[in-house]
């Protein structure tokens, strides 16, 4: 089955806490929940615990959801339905 944009819905409906991010700066692989979080800012800033680089930013201001993953090389998360894989 080819992958389509519709499949993105499945990704963003998941609980991402257990997702593993590969840092674009140093290559460390870390569970999302084990990162250093800086919520005291206009957006949540998520930094790599190994090198402190920003791997993810998430903001909810102004009626927009903003997600910046430019500091993440790869995001992996277990598919909820084994048959989907």
């Amino acid at each position: 089955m080819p992958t389509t944009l519709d499949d993105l819905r499945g990704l963003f409906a998941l609980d991402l806490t257990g997702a593993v991010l590969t840092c674009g700066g140093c290559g460390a692989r870390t569970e999302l929940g084990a990162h250093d979080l800086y919520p005291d800012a206009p957006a949540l800033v998520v930094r790599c615990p190994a090198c402190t680089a920003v791997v993810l930013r998430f903001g909810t201001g102004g009626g927009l959801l903003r997600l910046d993953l430019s500091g993440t090389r790869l995001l992996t998360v277990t598919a909820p339905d084994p048959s989907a894989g």
Partner: protein
Amino acid sequence: MAVVSRGFHGRGRRDRRLPPGQRDIGDGFPVLTAGPTPHTPLDEWDFVVQGQVDGLHRWTWEEFRALPHEPVTVDIHCVTSWSKFDTRWSGVAIDTLLDGVETAAEYVVAFSDGGYTTNLPLADLTEGQGWVVDTYEDEPLAPEHGGPARLLVPHLYFWKSAKWVRGLALTAFDEPGFWETFGYHDYGDPWREQRYAGD
């Protein structure tokens, strides 16, 4: 007859210095943190002007310290609504850093240790409007306030005055920075209350 803004009538001088929606923080100096405080050793620190320029312009810490410094006393205005009057700094004017730099660029992205960036029109940094400061209230600028050196552009909201600044990238086009991509206003004039995109 001149039109006088009524809101200023009968108020003291300080109120006239307070942009709309701001409050005087007095002796406080809050710190907003989006990451750990960088502690770059001074022998590894440098400041560069790069991008659309005739080659790379670079100063080591010693070279930067040897540049002509000037005292600056200004009011600063944070987007989180505090203002602080008569803050005293010392630093190198951007005019000094750009002296002899050939460029056709109209915009600047200031970049910092820790990955922070902010964008400004080049015209807002020159002609005595912007500095790289290394001294606050006669003391070396503390790391929590952006030391060893930070940008100071007091006529714009203080997020434009990038802490831990390491250089300026001169660009032909406006490239939104760290918070500007997340909803903060592209320009950030406190007197027009340009806090968020669309303000």
